[in-house]
């Protein structure tokens, strides 16, 4: 029992950044835009959080700065993909390349410096007494609680509100949505910006909670795993939570095996999340070979009103 609680706690801790990034990605991809800049956005979120927190010491300012920077990057992504209708794949790659270089440049002066514990933990005394649940939920930090709330809000928003219906309509069939009077391009701007802010928050969470010091390229592919998680989760926020924790668990599996005194070199243990990502995608692809993937139907297709048919 003790071990499982530890595993679950570790899964939540390392899965929360993945969860934020996946939720952000779902928001963007639901409106029909492929989001491959997640790795870069997370890095920019992390470096912004590190710099502002070390200089101001205020969590509020830090989060505001992270939101501002990632919203700006989101607006750039939106203006390229929505207004200029650029190739969404290359645009995402450019975002990642630029952001990894830029974040390394910005973070050079604070590289390796420890960041003091920034995010307060929520001590729920009334729940701490409950045996198992208390051990898991009694001492989670504020951002993790925010991620739980966000999953529920996003689920209800996408599936139970008319705004969510519009969002799905934009991603599945923008010409029809346009005819219905939904402002396709304006809403795409909104959702790309909002989703980018969430991905930036994922980077901030990674830095402030999970590994509290900035190292160049510290996301180590988590942004890309989040892109894969969007596919596993079939663009659904609740499944995203389960998938993110599953991968969070894989992420910490390496450490656990080492603690057990395994002879396997740590390099091979670190490969586990990447290899499992590929294997799970292959299994999903095989299972769904005759079924639709659940992806928004117009994902990756720029909407050009003048060419509506």
């Amino acid at each position, binding site marked *: 029992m003790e071990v499982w609680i530890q595993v679950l706690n570790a899964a939540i801790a390392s899965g929360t950044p993945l969860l934020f990034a996946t939720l952000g990605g779902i928001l963007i991809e639901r409106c029909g835009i492929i989001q491959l800049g997640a790795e870069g956005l997370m890095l920019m979120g992390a470096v912004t959080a590190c710099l502002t927190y070390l200089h101001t010491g205020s969590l509020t300012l830090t989060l505001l700065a992270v939101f501002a920077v990632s919203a700006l990057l989101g607006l750039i992504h939106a203006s390229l993909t929505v207004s200029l*209708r650029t190739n969404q794949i290359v645009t995402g790659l450019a975002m990642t390349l*630029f952001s990894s*270089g830029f974040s390394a440049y910005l973070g050079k002066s604070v590289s390796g410096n420890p960041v003091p514990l920034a995010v307060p933990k929520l001590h729920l005394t009334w729940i701490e007494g409950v045996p198992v649940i208390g051990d898991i939920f009694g001492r989670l930090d504020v951002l993790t609680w925010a991620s739980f709330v966000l999953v529920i809000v996003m689920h209800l928003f996408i599936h139970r509100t008319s705004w969510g219906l519009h969002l799905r309509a934009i991603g599945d069939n923008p010409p029809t949505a346009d005819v219905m009077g939904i402002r396709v391009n304006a809403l795409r701007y909104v959702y790309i910006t909002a989703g980018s802010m969430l991905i930036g928050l994922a980077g901030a969470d990674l830095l402030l909670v999970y590994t509290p010091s900035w190292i160049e390229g510290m996301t180590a592919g988590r942004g890309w*795993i989040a892109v894969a998680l969007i*596919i596993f989760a079939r663009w659904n926020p609740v499944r995203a939570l389960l998938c993110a924790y599953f991968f969070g668990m894989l992420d910490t599996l390496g450490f656990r095996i080492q603690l057990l005194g395994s002879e396997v070199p740590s390099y*091979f243990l670190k*490969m586990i999340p*990447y290899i499992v990502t590929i294997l799970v995608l292959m299994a999903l*692809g095989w299972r769904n070979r005759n079924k639709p993937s659940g992806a928004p139907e117009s994902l990756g297709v720029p909407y050009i009103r003048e060419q509506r048919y």
Partner: protein
Amino acid sequence: MNEQPVPGALTLDNKAPKPGRFSLRLEIDSSRPGNPWWVTIVSILLALVVCGVFIAANGMNPVTVYAKMLQGAFGSEFGITETLVKSIPLLLCGIGVAIAYRISIWNIGAEGQFAAGAIAATAVTIYFPDLPGYFAIPLMIVFSVAAGGLWGLLTAIPRTYFQVNELITSLMLNYVALLAMDYVVFGPWKDPKGFNFPGTPMFTDAQSLPVLGDTRLHAGLLFGIIAVLLYAFTVRYTRWGYELRLIGANAEAAKNAGIRIGRHILVVMIISGGLAGLAGMSEVAGVSHRLMYGISPGYGYTAIIVAWLAKLNPVGLIVASVLFGGLIVGGYSVQTIGLPSSISDMLQGAILFFLIAGGVIGKLRVRRAV
């Protein structure tokens, strides 16, 4: 506003421009030929300006920094040969990436395929240390191409048979290959006489590529030139190249014409990975003479920009890889004035950003709506 809708008529588009009002709209004119050459130049200049703002915000004079980079990369015989040395892996990886893009396969795994090739070439020196040069070098080439090709195949198989997006697979495999490289250089292959340096023992002369005179410019340059000539010839003049171009232009039509796209993807990814693997071999056997930690400053990722900048054109690939080789060398040279070399990564990303935007702007036309 003063327009009265006919009662009962469907008004579908409430955003339609009102008659008599001035309004503009953007149109993509696909009949226009791609980028005019000046769009590329302007994109690069704008990227320099934007990064210059960041450099200036850091308290340095961007003009000084760029001058330093230019001088470091092209200002001396040493700089020029170093730039060429860096352009060899970029050219080889860039051709590999370009050939995959020809059929719309997004191979972003050149970095991992490069590492796989470097590991395989080093394996030859570890397990067959006493081979004579005329035997060792060809064996290293075969091993590295096979390893890179295998790494490419590992991306192609999930894509062809399991509908897995090649972007994710190739990128995940990058991390796997880089971790495998870390394992061998920190673990079993570490030089016992290397004072804990994370690298394999130095290659012997028989295991190294010949160099030009006193410079570090090595015979890998020949691989690059041969590869680019073969690329230009096969894509343009062979049946296979014709099929690739057909798939790239319209995959659906190609499929209906009886072209087996799946098999093409497998072959193209083996070639693409094999070229990156060869780049890895030429880097260890020509430049570093050992496999060591952090051997690639992101060649595989820069190759993506090289291929994009070149628009998959053979001459463009040569020009772009020399340009970006210079950018890497220039990035190193600014370290002497106390700036991080990540400036060159930042510039690469910014150039790609402006190229994408510029590529569309070249085709956009502003129209007065009527």
